[in-house]
């Protein structure tokens, strides 16, 4: 510590030391920006959620207290959207974890061409979500899409299918597009964790006579736990809030098959122009996300 900041003998440390104040000055820009674009909007969002604010009648905005929350939480449609969101997120995160693990295992091997594969891996990550959505919409196209084309050529189907018009499949097809884009980041996180596993662990296991498969299950997988927790935390937050694919691929349809919470917030707010309930829903989503990340971080312990 810098000498000037040491407390003088017999006296308590001043409330604001020299270091404290220079740190505060350096943090001021970030604090100002984050207050303006994050903290204040979050507080304001809660304030709005206490009013019956409808842009269809902007001059009468009655205070309704927590009524919007009761409206949202007692609405069966909201809970249906929640269960679809959970379904979408759980499927996506599971698929992302498994595929990313396979990719990480491949890229952890030493072989010519590994560098090229690592570069290729970044392509889905860099692609804008909108372009990703457009790409999959075209692949799933019922008349000219690649999915129909390839399944038909391989004789898996005998007529072209309306993929996104099938309520049983829609959510999973959107999840597939989401997974494709999210795998790279998850794979990179797992790969970095994998590289940090000490080589001694493997040689020790080898000495003990463990074969490749046993080494994978007894050394690699347990050591990957922090990496997996990170992937699960990050990807479930991404999946819960995801909007772009739903907007472009299905607009919540067919019927309500892909009507997830993020889509519901958008419809309630910007199509029904009901800002009060929209804000209440956003708040519920934000709190649920925070609670989820708290639980995951707690179970991570002090590992990360």
């Amino acid at each position: 510590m810098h000498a000037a900041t040491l407390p003088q003998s017999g006296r308590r440390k001043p409330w604001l030391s020299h270091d404290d104040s220079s740190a505060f000055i350096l943090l001021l820009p970030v604090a100002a920006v984050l207050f303006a674009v994050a903290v204040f909007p979050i507080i304001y969002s809660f304030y709005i959620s206490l009013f019956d604010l409808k842009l269809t009648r902007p001059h009468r905005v009655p205070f309704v207290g927590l009524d919007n929350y009761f409206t949202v939480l007692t609405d069966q449609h909201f809970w249906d959207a929640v269960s679809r969101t959970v379904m979408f997120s759980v499927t996506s995160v599971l698929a992302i974890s498994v595929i990313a693990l396979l990719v990480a295992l491949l890229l952890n091997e030493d072989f010519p061409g590994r560098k090229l594969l690592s570069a290729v891996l970044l392509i889905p990550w860099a692609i804008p979500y909108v372009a990703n959505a457009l790409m999959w919409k075209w692949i799933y196209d019922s008349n000219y899409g690649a999915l129909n084309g390839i399944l038909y050529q391989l004789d898996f189907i005998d007529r072209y299918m309306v993929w996104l018009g099938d309520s049983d499949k829609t959510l999973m097809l959107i999840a597939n597009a989401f997974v494709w884009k999210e795998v790279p980041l998850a794979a990179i996180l797992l790969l970095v964790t994998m590289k940090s596993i000490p080589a001694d662990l493997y040689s020790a296991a080898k000495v003990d006579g463990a074969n490749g498969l046993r080494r994978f299950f007894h050394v690699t997988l347990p050591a990957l736990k922090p990496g997996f927790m990170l992937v699960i935390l990050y990807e479930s937050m991404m999946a819960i809030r995801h909007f772009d694919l739903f907007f472009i691929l299905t607009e919540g349809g067919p019927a309500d098959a892909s009507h997830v919470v993020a889509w519901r917030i958008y419809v309630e707010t910007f199509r029904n122009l009901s800002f009060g309930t929209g804000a209440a829903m956003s708040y519920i989503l934000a709190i649920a996300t925070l609670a989820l990340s708290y639980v995951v971080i707690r179970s991570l312990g002090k590992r990360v």
Partner: protein
Amino acid sequence: MATSSSTARRKRALMQNLRVLGLAIASLVFLLYVLAPVAWLVSSSLQQEAALTSVPPQWIPKDPHLDNFRVIFSADDQERVTYETRRAADPASGGFIPSTAKNLLPAMGNSFIVSVAVVILNLLVAVPAAYALAKIRFRGRNASVYGILITRVIPDIALVVPFFLFIRNLGLLDTLSSLVITYLAVTVPFSVFILVSYFEQLPDELDKAARVDGCSRLQTMTRVFLPLAAPSLVALSLFAFLTSWNEFLLALMFTQTAASQTLPIIVASFTSDFTISFSFINAAGVLAIIPPVILAIIFQRYIVSGLTAGAVKG
């Protein structure tokens, strides 16, 4: 003795071959999984509408052409982008080129301006904050870290309602500034975390030595740490740029006309219209992915280190 060692050698050679074969197959599956969807998008953008709508699909264009891209780049020439001229030039093609095709390049310009502005603002606020968080032991340091962390956990969809009302009240709807301001909420926390984790790796002695030599905090930061932090500054700039370039939800809320619409918005607007030429929509998609993909591949080293640093911290 001799036979058993030769069996062992043969066994090892077999294992080695199996490993090579396994890696080759795995690499092929990997390449197919990652590249096939993109390849199909690119292939579609180079086909005539008639070829594109054939059943089964033409996987590799027999007669590739760049008409769809030409339309985008010569789009201020209004004549070329109408339904009729398209039809006259190519009777086989169905689907029309929308008049908003001429907005694609300006939208790309908008995306570029917004992204660069967001990068600059990120650098300005994140560098001092990260230096303070990494190198100064001050009261409330942990609280500050958690405070910044929490703003990153809040879903952006939870912010759209207050954002929309503010932007409207400030009279900033349909301006680029509305996007620059709101994108800060999404990018700044991540930038701070990338930089903090990088600064923390740099030895504290550097800081002390500079201070003993009479540098102020600000001088230490700009003269000693900033040059050393170049790699993480590159990573931070890339993330802020790509996030802004790719952002859709907030742009959808705040932009209404070509004055402020970004590339994702224009591209998305094509997908909802069933009469627009498929090959043209795919060309627009290709145009939207080229800049970010090129950046990602050129700077992949920085991206990987930045992602892991930012993610592990955040």
